[in-house]
């Protein structure tokens, strides 16, 4: 405050600030209050400019999809689109299920099921990964948990999935076994509406 440097129009009687006093004056109060209001106003105005980039209402509208799997046979996979992402539906062969079941949890890089149907800390056993009640089916978001590429099926050291981007290897239950990916591929909310129809989402 340089009240003593510049001529001021504030009358002396109206609590003119005494430059030597440490008591906050009325003017200090107004300066701080105005400054604080300006900061709040700018932050409030900035928010719409930031928030407009978030997913809009149409993207948020949670769509679920029904997939007919009556034509699928063991060893076949299909890929469907759900919320802009690929979802793998794999009808696993008995050998694949066996291989996944026989894997001890201690061999897994990520021991958590990553299944939206279960608890967030359910262990990554094959039962917790497979579709509810139908262990031959594996339904998961086909996005590598490293940087988002779509892995190739029936490939890699475990004959599960192999991500071509940076070499992540998944087993036949879609669990990360080695490579840079940190997590097992995600199992979305899944339900069988009847024997031949899977509802995703």
């Amino acid at each position: 405050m340089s009240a003593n440097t510049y001529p001021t129009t504030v009358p002396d009687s109206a609590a003119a600030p005494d430059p030597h006093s440490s008591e906050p004056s009325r003017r200090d109060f107004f300066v701080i209050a105005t400054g604080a209001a300006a900061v709040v106003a700018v932050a409030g105005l900035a928010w719409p400019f930031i928030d407009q980039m978030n997913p809009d209402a149409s993207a948020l509208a949670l769509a679920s999809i029904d997939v007919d799997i009556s034509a699928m046979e063991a060893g076949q996979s299909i890929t469907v689109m759900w919320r802009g992402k690929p979802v793998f539906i794999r009808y696993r062969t008995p050998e694949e299920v066996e291989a996944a079941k026989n894997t001890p949890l201690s061999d897994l890089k990520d021991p958590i099921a990553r299944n939206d149907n279960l608890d967030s800390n359910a262990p990554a056993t094959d039962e917790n990964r497979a579709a509810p009640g139908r262990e031959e089916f594996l339904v998961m978001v086909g996005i590598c948990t490293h940087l988002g590429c779509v892995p190739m099926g029936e490939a890699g050291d475990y004959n599960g999935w192999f991500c071509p981007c940076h070499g992540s290897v998944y087993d036949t239950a879609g669990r990360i076994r080695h490579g840079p990916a940190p997590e097992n591929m995600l199992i979305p909310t899944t339900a069988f509406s009847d024997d031949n129809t899977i509802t995703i989402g």
Partner: protein
Amino acid sequence: MQGTSEYQPRTGIERWIDSRMPLPRLMYDSFIAYPIPRNLNYSYAFGAILSLVLVVQILTGVVLAMHYAANSAIAFNSVEQIMRDVNYGWLLRYMHANGSSMFFIAVYIHMFRGLYYGSYKAPREIQWILGVILFLLMMATAFMGYVLPWGQMSFWGATVITNLFSAIPLVGEGITHWLWGGFAVGNPTLNRFFSLHYLLPFMIVGVVILHVWAFHVTGQTNPTGVEPKSRSDVVPFTPHATMKDAVAMVAFALFFAWFLFYLPNYLGHPDNYTLANPLVTPPHIVPEWYFLPFYAILRAIPSKLGGVIAMFASIIVLFFLPWLDRSKVQSAAYRPLYRIFFWIFVVNVICLGYFGAKPPEGWYVLATQLLTAYYFVHFLIIFPLLGYIEKPRPRPTSITEAVLSKHKSGGGGTPAEAAASPERRG
């Protein structure tokens, strides 16, 4: 270096303008009378070349935007329409696409020039930092531009790079959704990338002005690393730098034209002539060549967060060079050890780029890891250490002395050899 102005308005109009808005005076003092060291070589021409490429990119970009449609349903076809139907569209698009590669070739030479001649040292730290900011802005612009044609490489490049942010604990996923405007890369992503791709070049222009301003305050470095001391050490910008820059720009334009007319797709990827498909990742995805060294560093670390940190750190470390380098000697010409390590580093970066383009298998992985380690060792250990253990060669007392003794010794000698002759003192 900012002497008093030598501008003399000659006509009445010039005087009239000069007393109101002295832009002609600023131009005269900056690009005509401005004193530059008399011993600058052609490696100093890349600043001018970069300005030229920036202008080419903005001009071609503005006209391409008149024909391009930033909508994921038609973007790919609108680019093909530019190539086939728009008058000279093929030329403008190839200029723009290859122009980005030319931009990076020039900027890498410009940066290595700076590293060799110690251009980042006091009192030019701010100028160096502005340069690193320009480099980051260029990378962001190039990345977003590459997404616009909406081919397979565009889509998957965008996916992988934006997913880098998902490595951040807690807020990572929110940030990626915010960047995409959805739950995967899609039309909202393309729209905003187009908007920002158009904006960033103008921010680059702004920072370039600051960058040029900074060296007009501190003066340019020169191959001897000895600051100009007298009038005989400097020459006026025009005609000396103007002409030299013009020759270099013409030579660079020929190089550019060679790619443009004979190898227009050599630096691109055939996969990008396939429409983006969110269900299939191409078997081998690689970024554009100019990102390969950084991509190699990303892949070298076998952990998601670790890889992302290493990659960003490899660029952030550049901000600290002025303080990591403990040597008082500016130019590598008088630093026998640094000169060797400089070239090792150049080879290191080129090798990183080479392995960045290879699939992450077998021994490539180990090689990339060793090269990545060396990248950081160079800056974090060798750089500070050299300042203490290196015995610099004697430096000339002035630029004039270095130049004259070079010619006395029959030419062909480097300033270093000239300076090492016995009658000189350090």
